[in-house]
């Protein structure tokens, strides 16, 4: 038989490797017979292919070799489990530290993962999500924002193709009935405070795919003056009934009632919009000509594109819109129009990017932040990594305990493979235990974590992927953290080990030291971070704001009293414990009503770009009540006399280039104002922003009454005020807040960051201490004999303690040196968000350093002292 008539031998080798030994002979024989046929019929190449194909087809369950038949693992498995369990029980303290430390690390990792997953999966619930966008303004190199003039959406719809539906939304708190209102059913007498109102085009329900309980998406907002309410509000006001067609009043405007057109499902928690009331924009005009004017930027624009429309290209085409804007500006300020033509462009932003935007975009929604997300990704991975490192450290540190076992096993014939199996099984047991403990921990701290993060997270026990996912995680961590100890332990040489001279080498100590330094550096960074966040928080809360926020009461919803509110104010002022009171709609707390308006020096409208300033109507008691200082000029005196007077802040004077602002005349809208006073700059927005220009105009009424209190007995005073209120408004419960509380609430997110930092700082220190504990135990054990001899020769306990701990102090020193620059860099990045930031002082590093040294010494002394205090005879007797 010639050689060229045999099939390639590698196929046979493959068959022999994969098929059961007792079957391979007949299979090969049969295939060979066919091969000869094929060879003559189709030629060699084809025959080879066929041979391979048919060989592969022989690989069936009955014929494939059992891959594990050669290992002893299945038989040994339960034995390994037993040994693992025994060794855990034998060293209970170590086992607890190992499992507990690991569990805490895993728990932290899980919590962070849940938090991050929640952050990055906002607005995923739309069926047509990939076609939903909102339009964003972009002024090159300056700013991005989402508001548009009223006619913008019509222009977009009529002039651009590729758009299926377009709708506008006014989410701005205080824009007519958007934001907060007093709410009254037409057949009720009680007027209650409600939040979450917004104006919307009828089509918005369709774009946001809002499920309707009563009414339809198409019809609910189509009638003028119709309103859609959320399910929770319907349940509150119209329990168990269909409220469609019911009338209701906002802010006691009984002449213009709203009619309920439908009830919508509550918005999901992970939606960027969360409104309870949509007021229709259908055929609505806020003042004559408003809908066709390009003056005022109040409308957010949402789109659903046609299938296949390129959002990028459409965004670029929208550049044409800027011409409309410029045309309007031309009349007032040609220079501004020029800037618009040159720099103003538009982009489409997918809805699911609104919560975590790539660039900072001004809008009114709550946002996550990518830096925070990345920070937590880093902390999460680091905590898990530290926990794994500890696991390795602790496993190898106590190696001596297992050395004899390994030696004996080797003598009776255990191979390396068996050791790896055994120790991996042990790691698996520990990991599984740790993960179970971690899951319990997570479930326990979840309520607290949720209250800190303002989320409603939970472990997805019921998801199909959860338990398998946990198992995969356990397997991964087992291999990751168990492989090194497994190989390390199986390397022991039996003779040496049994004779008792176990040398573990100094290389190993170095590895460990590096780990500990790394851990401590990480802890120091996190501690410094936590300290600085707290300092910044304190700094903000106690900074001189330019006004007094202590003992200031804000009474909301005064607007429903109309003219009577002035009387109410006078009565409140007459109360003995009240120093002063003022009526306004504007307060210097971030997130409350705002009104941006352009101002020009008289006659410069055509020449200059306007100064965009906050314009607040306030009464004559405003400055005094809030303790704001005038730098120049006077307050409003008499509304009749001061009807054209205006007070501006220093920043506005600066931006208008007014050296002597008093008497200056300012153009604004259709009026001209005379500056009668300059108020010292005060912080009316969050500290993350600079103080902007601000103008106070003379007003009589407002939503809010600001009351400055004198008394310490606030309880009694509040009762007095409530009494007065009830005389005026028997049907509307009084609603008030204290200004300092409202102020603190503005910085809740800073407080949250601080709380989370603290939690992770404690965790990091704890885990680092476990690592240190492992290392100190290891070294103390190594030097047991040395210590004993020193002791016999007369060393004192103090000498020995110094000897054992000096190294660690050195390590902490190195960690500190490494950590300082990193901490400074990271924290500077964070503080950059704040326009007014606390300086990074040296004292935080001193505190962190001393703190960590103290904790570390405490940890180290535990094992060291144990060795120091043992009878030297025992240490020397250990042979």
């Amino acid at each position, binding site marked *: 038989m010639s050689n060229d008539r045999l099939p390639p031998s590698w196929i046979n080798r493959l068959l022999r490797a994969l098929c059961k030994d007792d079957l391979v*002979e007949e299979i090969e024989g049969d295939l060979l017979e066919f091969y000869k046929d094929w060879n003559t019929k189709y030629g060699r190449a084809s025959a080879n292919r066929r041979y391979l194909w048919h060989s592969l*087809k022989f690989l069936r369950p009955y014929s494939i070799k059992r891959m594990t038949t050669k290992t002893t693992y299945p038989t040994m498995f339960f034995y390994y489990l037993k040994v693992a369990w025994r060794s855990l029980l034998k060293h209970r303290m170590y086992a607890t530290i190992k499992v507990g430390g690991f569990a805490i690390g895993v728990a932290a990792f899980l919590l962070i993962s849940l938090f991050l997953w929640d952050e990055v999966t906002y607005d995923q619930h739309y069926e047509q999500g990939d076609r939903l966008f909102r339009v964003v303004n972009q002024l090159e190199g300056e700013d991005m924002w989402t508001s548009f003039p009223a006619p913008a959406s019509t222009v977009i719809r009529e002039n651009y193709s590729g758009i299926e539906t377009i709708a506008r939304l006014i989410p701005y708190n205080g824009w007519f009935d958007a934001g907060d209102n007093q709410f009254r059913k037409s057949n009720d007498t009680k007027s209650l405070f409600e939040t979450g109102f917004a104006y919307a085009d009828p089509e918005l329900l369709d774009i946001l795919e809002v499920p309707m309980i009563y009414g339809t998406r198409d019809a609910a907002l189509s009638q003028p003056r119709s309103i859609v309410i959320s399910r929770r509000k319907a349940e509150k006001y119209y329990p168990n009934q269909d409220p469609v067609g019911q009338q209701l009043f906002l802010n006691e405007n009984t002449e213009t009632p709203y009619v309920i057109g439908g009830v919508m499902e509550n918005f999901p928690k992970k939606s960027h919009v969360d409104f309870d009331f949509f007021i229709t924009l259908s055929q609505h005009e806020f003042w004559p000509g408003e809908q066709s004017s390009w003056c005022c930027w109040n409308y957010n624009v949402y789109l659903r594109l046609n299938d296949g429309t390129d959002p990028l290209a459409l965004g670029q085409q929208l550049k044409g819109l800027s011409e409309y804007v410029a045309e309007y500006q031309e009349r007032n300020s040609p220079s501004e129009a020029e800037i618009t033509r040159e720099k103003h462009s538009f982009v489409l932003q997918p809805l699911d990017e609104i919560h975590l935007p790539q660039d900072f975009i001004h809008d009114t929604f709550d946002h996550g932040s990518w830096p925070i997300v990345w920070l937590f990704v880093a902390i999460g991975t680091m905590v898990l990594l530290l926990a794994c490192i500890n696991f390795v450290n602790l496993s190898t540190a106590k190696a001596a305990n297992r050395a004899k076992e390994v030696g004996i096993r080797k003598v009776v014939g255990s191979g390396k493979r068996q050791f790896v199996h055994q120790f991996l099984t042990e790691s698996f047991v520990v990991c599984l235990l740790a993960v179970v403990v971690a899951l319990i921990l997570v479930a326990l701290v979840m309520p607290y974590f949720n209250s800190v993060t303002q989320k409603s997270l939970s472990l997805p026990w019921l998801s199909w992927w959860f338990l398998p996912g946990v198992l995969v995680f356990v397997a991964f961590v087992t291999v990751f953290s168990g492989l090194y100890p497994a190989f390390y332990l199986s390397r022991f040489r039996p003779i040496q080990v049994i004779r008792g001279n176990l040398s573990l080498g100094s290389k190993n100590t170095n590895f460990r030291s590096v780990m500990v330094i790394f851990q401590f550096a990480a802890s120091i960074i996190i501690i410094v971070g936590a300290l600085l966040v707290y300092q910044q928080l304190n700094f903000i809360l106690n900074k001189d704001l330019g006004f007094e926020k202590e003992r200031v009461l804000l009474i909301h919803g005064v607007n429903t009293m109309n003219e009577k509110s002035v009387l109410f104010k006078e009565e409140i002022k007459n109360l003995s414990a009240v120093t002063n009171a003022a009526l306004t709609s504007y307060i210097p707390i971030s997130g409350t009503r705002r009104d941006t308006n352009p101002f020009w020096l008289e006659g410069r409208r055509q020449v200059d770009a306007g100064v965009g300033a906050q314009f607040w109507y306030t009464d004559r008691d405003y400055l005094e009540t809030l303790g704001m200082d005038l730098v120049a000029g006077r307050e409003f005196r008499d509304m009749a006399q001061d009807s054209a007077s205006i007070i501006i802040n220093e920043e506005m004077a600066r931006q208008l280039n007014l050296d002597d602002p008093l008497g200056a005349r300012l153009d604004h809208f259709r009026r001209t104002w005379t500056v009668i006073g300059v108020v010292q700059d005060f912080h009316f927005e969050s500290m993350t922003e600079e103080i902007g220009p601000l103008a106070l105009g003379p007003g009589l009424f407002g939503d809010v009454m600001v009351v400055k209190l004198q008394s310490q007995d606030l309880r009694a005073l509040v009762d007095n005020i409530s009494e007065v209120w009830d005389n005026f408004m028997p049907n509307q419960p009084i609603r008030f807040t204290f200004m300092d509380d409202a102020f603190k609430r503005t910085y809740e997110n800073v407080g949250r960051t601080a709380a989370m930092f603290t939690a992770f700082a404690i965790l990091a220190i704890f885990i680092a201490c476990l690592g240190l504990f492992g290392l100190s135990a290891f070294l103390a054990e190594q030097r047991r004999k040395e210590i004993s001899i020193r002791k016999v020769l007369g060393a004192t306990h103090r000498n020995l303690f110094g000897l054992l701990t000096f190294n660690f102090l050195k390590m902490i020193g190195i960690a500190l040196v490494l950590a300082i620059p990193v901490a400074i860099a990271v924290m500077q990045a964070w503080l950059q968000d704040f326009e007014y930031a606390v300086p990074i002082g040296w004292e935080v590093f001193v505190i962190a350093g001393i703190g960590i040294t103290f904790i570390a010494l405490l940890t180290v002394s535990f094992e060291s002292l144990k060795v120091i205090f043992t009878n030297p005879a025992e240490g020397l007797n250990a042979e």
Partner: protein
Amino acid sequence: MRKVYIGELEEVILLLVAMLQEEAYGVAITKEIQSQLSRNISVSAVHATLHRLEKKGYVESFMGGATSERGGRRKRFFKVTPAGGAILKEIQTARDLLWSRLPPNAWTT
């Protein structure tokens, strides 16, 4: 009546093992199916079926002597067991019974 778990291919191969007598092994059976029944079947499928039949106890097997044409590899020969014969007969009887009850023009009306 006892339930008989035997598939159509199993039945065909069992019959062929009975038919081929001394020559009943993988290649011969495969070729027989290809030529007699004009069915394209791979040798691996035949092996798998034979394996299944053996597990069910309808055939038994033994290794034959080495031959040079297979490069010295032995053949595994198969033989129908009494149980295998019984089941073939059982199937045959059941079918005959049903056929005998068929009306003469069963397909035309």
